């Protein structure tokens, strides 16, 4: 165990305090000696553990997991979770600055990264959910949502006093909130807008944002009633401001990787640095998150300067639709192993031409800033999403697109065929479709993936 923790950046001086906590957590969630050995192997296989930044990131995930699992035991009286609900993390962070009895975190982020990416042991959690309303099989319920149900069913995370969800992207999360309330008596709250959004420039856009803002303010009132702590606009601005350096450095890192040839770091790392923000709602963690990403950025820059190749120079450059797998590094690793440079994923691209950041005035209402996800490509209609994907591919000089669609997330997934034909028509480059699950490691099929990626690479080479 100590060896694993040290591999993940824990310093000796921390272990007196952290080791008993983490042992307690691992006992609770069924992590044993065999799992720990497997974790060490997985880390050394799939990640560049020699990079200090990577170790720091995993350190934060493991410590955050302990904070989450032990929250009640360690005296937290009000526990709030967000489920597919952008903005709740910010409000919860604001609340946590005012009371140390309040705790909030994003359970999926910790379990995906620690129990999924590190230990490869997420299956029991997903199976637990499938025994209830999120059945397995063709229906393809989203494994992100399954994770919450499974974790609560297994008692791996404390029962929340409030679970907040939203319908910005899907119906599955709000429906599960409805079920959690009806079946298990867990108090939930949903905020929403209406998704008749056209593009970023539609005159109707304002109304959609306004409705979202009103609904979010309703959610803030609910949080105030629950905690007895007032949420002011200034508190929200403070949290947003504190998180800005993280946004800036992670964007720099993303840009550096996307524009480098050779690829300086395996794409297995994309998810771990994308998802660190918003995992913990503890404002004390923010400087450490920024430090971890900053360290990684400097290390990757050094690799670029030295011409270090995680994937050989000149390898075909691939862009992937949908964000990278949240809980399983194997697909990303395999692409690298086969000599495919997966340079970027669709993680926050904005219309009209697929920028990584929005070119628009900063909102005056902080709740409007919390609705910013609504502008990103995966929340858009195909009319706005597809040009943004094409624009980004053009700028990155992409040789092929892995058109993977997270079947559990119907709205963006159902664009897949249109994306395929538009990219073929506009860019005339190979497109590989992949029916996929972003959060469920069980979909990984090495033999099949190896075959299709090898063929994909050949097609790109000959194109």
């Amino acid at each position: 165990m100590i060896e694993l923790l040290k591999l993940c950046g824990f310093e000796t001086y921390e272990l007196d305090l952290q080791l008993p906590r983490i042992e307690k957590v691992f006992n609770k969630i069924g992590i044993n000696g065999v799992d720990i050995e497997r974790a060490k192997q997985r880390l050394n296989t799939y990640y560049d553990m020699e990079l200090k930044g990577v170790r720091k990131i995993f350190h934060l995930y493991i410590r955050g997991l302990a904070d989450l699992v032990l929250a009640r035991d360690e005296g937290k009286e009000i526990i709030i979770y967000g489920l597919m609900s952008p903005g709740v993390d910010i409000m919860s962070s604001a609340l946590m600055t005012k009371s140390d009895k309040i705790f909030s975190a994003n359970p999926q982020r910790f379990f995906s990264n620690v129990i999924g990416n590190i230990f490869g042991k997420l299956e029991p959690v997903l199976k637990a959910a499938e025994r209830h309303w999120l059945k397995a099989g063709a229906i393809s319920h989203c494994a992100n949502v399954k994770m919450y149900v499974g974790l609560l069913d297994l008692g791996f995370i404390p029962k929340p006093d409030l679970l907040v969800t939203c319908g910005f992207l899907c119906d599955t999360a709000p429906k599960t909130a409805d079920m959690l309330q009806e079946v298990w008596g867990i108090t939930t709250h949903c905020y929403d807008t209406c998704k008749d959004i056209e593009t970023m420039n539609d005159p109707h856009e304002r109304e959609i944002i306004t409705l979202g803002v009103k609904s979010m303010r309703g959610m803030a009132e609910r949080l105030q009633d629950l905690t007895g702590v007032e949420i002011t606009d200034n508190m929200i601005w403070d949290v947003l401001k504190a998180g800005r350096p993280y946004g800036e450095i992670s964007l720099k890192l993303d840009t550096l990787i996307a524009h480098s040839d050779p690829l300086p770091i395996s794409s297995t790392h994309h998810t771990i640095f994308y998802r660190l923000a918003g995992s913990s709602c503890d404002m004390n963690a923010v400087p450490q998150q920024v430090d971890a990403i900053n360290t990684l950025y400097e290390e990757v820059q050094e690799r670029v300067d030295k011409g270090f190749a995680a994937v050989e120079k000149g390898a075909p450059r691939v862009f992937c639709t949908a964000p990278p797998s949240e809980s399983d590094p194997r697909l990303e690793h395999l692409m690298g192993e086969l000599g495919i440079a997966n340079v970027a994923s669709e993680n926050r691209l904005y219309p009209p031409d697929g920028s990584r950041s929005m070119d628009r005035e900063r909102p005056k209402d902080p709740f409007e800033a919390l609705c910013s996800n609504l502008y990103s490509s995966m929340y858009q209609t195909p009319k706005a999403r597809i040009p943004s994907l094409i624009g980004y591919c053009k700028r990155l000089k992409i040789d092929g697109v892995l058109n993977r669609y997270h079947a559990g997330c119907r709205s963006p997934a159902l664009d897949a065929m249109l994306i395929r034909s538009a990219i073929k028509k506009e860019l005339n480059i190979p497109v590989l479709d992949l029916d996929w699950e972003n959060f469920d490691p069980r979909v990984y099929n090495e033999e099949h993936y190896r075959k299709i990626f090898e063929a994909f690479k050949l097609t790109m080479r000959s194109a």
Partner: protein
Amino acid sequence: MDDERLTTHLKDRPDQLMELKKQGIKIIGYFPGNYVPEEIIYAAGAIPICLIDNGGADSAEAALELIPHISCPFSRAQIGERILKTNPYYGMIDLLVAPITCQHLKKIAEIWDYLDEVDIFKLGVPHQYYGEDELEYYTHRIRALQGKIEALTGNRIANENVSKAIILYNRMRNLLKKISLLRRASPQTVSAINFIRLNHASYYADPVFMVDYLDSVYEELSGKALVSADEATKPRLMLIGPNLAKGDYKILELITAAGGNVVIEEICEGIRDYWQTIEEKTDPISSLARGYIRDKLPCAFMRYSSQKRINFALKMVQDFSVSGVIWYQLLYCESYDTESYLYNRKMGELNIPMLILESDYDEGSYQQMKTRIDAFIEMLKGGIE
């Protein structure tokens, strides 16, 4: 029932509409779910047509070139019809009104829009149907729809005309409800398949004709037991599902063949439409907004709708003396699949047997369904004995 009169009307309807189209009358199609007020369309002098055809595998399969398989077969079929071009209604519409209902139909509208073959108006339907802000939003979008239709038809939609349309459509709903309520009796006066055909016809037929026709049907049926006396011994069933497309009657045929008797349906193009009327004495647009989003039974994709929906279902079980529930969902429909868990649990607590079926409109799923329906009804019959 004078089937011939209705059959002839429906048979002639596409040609009649094409003729009207030539005269400049606009045909406005809309996707089902009961969130598009036909009254607005009718009040503009245009013709509303609800696109609810399907149940066959061809159109659902044809769509796979444009959409992955993980969309429900009904939604896929709406793309398939555009590709196959065999259904006259799909080819004649001047405007498609696409309500933002479930993720599947929302995407179908987006795909139609992307293909740019027909003018589309996306009608925002907030899923927090109980909120005041959401009601205001929906009202505003209905007013925007009003503007769109006025621009398309060149006709101003006067409140007076909307009020008249509300009265007309309310008469239709009331008649459907009255006919449906006749099925509380045992033996019942109209079979499920005939009732559903009537209901489906109301989405295509001229509403004035339909009201007149339903009036005569009700006159004919009231107080009269048309179905044979042995029907009274058959298990009385409730059918619950997202939608039952016009043409998706195989499920009803299988139930009938197995000796079951569906006496009430809780489906989009059914009770959720005709059970409530629209208030007639207030500002008609506000009335429509409130009536369509708030007063009607919410669909399963609406937020926190489960409790209200299950309470309604239980009331129907009681009122229609139902002895078993058949839950008929479409493959890949996450909201209904999720909710089936809750219904099954609740029905189980009340000792009401429930059978969950899933369709992809393909022969394979019907084969499997047949076996399960036979066994379920056999079990219910045993219970009766």
